[in-house]
């Protein structure tokens, strides 16, 4: 789950004691002008849960109430990476002296939270990491291990922070605590700025909640950003299916993320374009009827591949759902099956008997036929 900047700042950074610039939310040009009256010279920022807002034109400076209203008028209603802008953060314009970068994320190599810091932050920090790796510090902190001011200072050794070492070390310990206590998948401050008056503040904030831990973080889950899925994707999410609508014409229904991705790969390999990704993993295999309805509701679908390989998932149960959906919807698109693994004999007999369709032995052949049929 993602969060917009303002929510990440107010619900995570501020309670943890990390300073942020003074700011107010606005949802209209008039509200932006009002906020200017209170804050003064400011930066107006689109509140959408995605990066590269500045490059998309979603961040503008304003030196007057009129300029603030104008900026708000321009940014509100913009679409940034598929997100409609309906809220702005009007934030005091800080006089920046230095920009740093700080983040905590899970590290697969050490299987621990990794504290990441660079004495050079801001835009294009990925390029900085490649060009000036010596400005970066990485410290895995094992679960239960202490990460206090001393450990953070130790991590920062050798970096020139212009005298802000103590403040930065303090912020890193707080960021680490946020990561652990709030079940984060990522917490990132870029830039973390040293201002002309010596304060070190978070000018931006990114927080991602581990979806698997949302059940024990209800307060955070309640303020997560609303994603903007298509109608079909929303219907999928409502029944617990991860459905992503694509612009191709070969519909895909397979079990397990690995086999689904592979089916899409093979469609591309034979010159076709997949119309969707759909994850039916674990217990969700029993939802094949709903899953098929979703795949077929996509108007772009010209043919369909149904590829089952049952391990945990029972192909007979999945085939039963497919047959039910097929008989209810009576679709006219051609469908090509490949069925193997747990329950395959019953599944193949069902498809043959109820739909009069003979499954292909090799998935490659089923896919080839579907790509051909979609042309």
């Amino acid at each position: 789950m993602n969060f917009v900047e303002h929510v990440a700042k107010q619900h995570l950074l501020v309670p943890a004691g990390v300073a942020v610039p003074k700011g107010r939310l606005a949802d209209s040009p008039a509200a932006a002008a009002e906020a200017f009256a209170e804050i003064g010279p400011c930066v107006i920022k689109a509140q959408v849960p995605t990066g590269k807002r500045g490059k998309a034109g979603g961040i503008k400076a304003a030196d007057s109430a009129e300029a603030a209203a104008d900026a708000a008028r321009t940014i509100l209603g913009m679409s940034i990476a598929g997100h409609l802008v309906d809220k702005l953060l009007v934030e005091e314009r800080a006089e920046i002296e230095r920009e740093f970068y700080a983040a905590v994320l899970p590290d697969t190599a050490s299987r621990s939270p990794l504290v990441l810091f660079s004495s050079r932050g801001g835009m294009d920090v990925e390029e900085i990491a490649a060009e000036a790796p010596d400005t970066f510090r990485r410290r895995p902190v094992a679960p239960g291990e202490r990460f206090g001011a001393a450990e953070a200072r130790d991590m920062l050794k050798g970096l020139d922070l212009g005298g802000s070492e103590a403040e930065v070390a303090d912020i890193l310990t707080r960021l680490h605590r946020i990561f652990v206590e709030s079940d984060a998948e990522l917490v990132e401050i870029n830039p973390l700025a040293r201002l002309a008056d010596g304060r070190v503040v978070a000018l931006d904030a990114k927080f991602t909640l581990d979806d698997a831990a949302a059940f024990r973080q209800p307060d955070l889950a309640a303020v997560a950003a609303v994603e903007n899925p298509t109608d079909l994707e929303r219907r999928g999410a409502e029944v617990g299916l991860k459905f992503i609508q694509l612009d191709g014409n070969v519909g895909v229904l397979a079990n397990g993320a690995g086999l689904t991705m592979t089916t899409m790969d093979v469609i591309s390999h034979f010159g076709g374009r997949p119309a969707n990704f759909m994850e039916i993993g674990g217990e969700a295999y029993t939802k094949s009827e709903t899953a098929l309805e979703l795949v077929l509701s996509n108007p772009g679908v010209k043919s369909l591949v149904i590829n089952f390989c049952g391990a945990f998932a029972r192909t007979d149960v999945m085939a039963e759902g497919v047959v039910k959906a097929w008989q209810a919807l009576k679709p006219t698109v051609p469908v090509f099956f490949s069925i193997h693994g747990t329950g395959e004999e019953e599944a193949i007999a069902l498809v043959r008997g109820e739909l009069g369709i003979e499954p292909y032995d090799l998935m490659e052949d089923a896919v080839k036929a579907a790509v051909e049929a979609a042309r």
Partner: protein
Amino acid sequence: MIIRKHHKVLVQGITGKQGSFWTEKMMACGTQVVGGVNPKRAGETHVGLPVFASAREAMAAAPYDVAVMFIPPAAAKDAALDAIEAGVKLLVMLTEHIPIRDVMAVHEAARRRGTRTVGPNTAGLVTPGEAFVGIMPGHNPNVFQPGRVGVISRSGSLGTLVCLNLTRAGLGQSAFIGVGGDPMVGTTTRDALEALDRDARTQAVALVGEIGGVMEEDAADYAATMRKPVVAFIAGRAAPPGRKMGHAGAIATANRGGYASKRQALEAAGVTVVDTPGEIAEACGRGLAHGQCGAEQGSLSMEA
């Protein structure tokens, strides 16, 4: 992490629907299951096996080497720590969607105790003709047959497909190691590759990877040192771009983890990378035939 017939196995969550179903399948394949755990039903007998209150209690009454978890995500951490404290040697975590913080805590406990973990989100381990633990169709002879190819897979469904193809090609499997679909797993693709390299019965390896993470890149470093032929398929070439972990993910992995990065690393290590899963068995067959012709040039012989 190759499961053997002499291994004694404990099933955590044995009384559930899936726990019961798969325990019977495992036993039918020759797996020595010594008992199960459910604190609420301790003292009972289930599917003919004793049920214990905890993995620790089970260890005292019926010692075992391997524990396999049929436990929902919210309870997974406690169950895993129970088995680790009990002194299990190998812990197989089938559970998907365990919170990352809990996963890290389990890995840390396992590291301190010297426990080998597989998963989370693994489909399990199969050694055809010997034993299996997990949720793979180890009992289906169309899929699994004793043979010469070691299979490593992050995905259960795709792993099943590859094993099926190997069986049809008459090659069979020496062992299947499901490393798991989670981003942070206890046994990596490289660990599995090393184990199969050491395994006398394995003559070739089929490595089934996926986009995301850098396990395939890390495994490539080891594959470069191997004499046994390695064939790889990486799923996700045509997948829509997924969630990116902001800048941090890219910085932490130095922009590795995509399809191109994995394919390049594996090919540079002399691994044959195929475009469809159907080609895996054929490529393994070619690699084995070449090996038997007396070519002693390690995995580079795969280029022929």
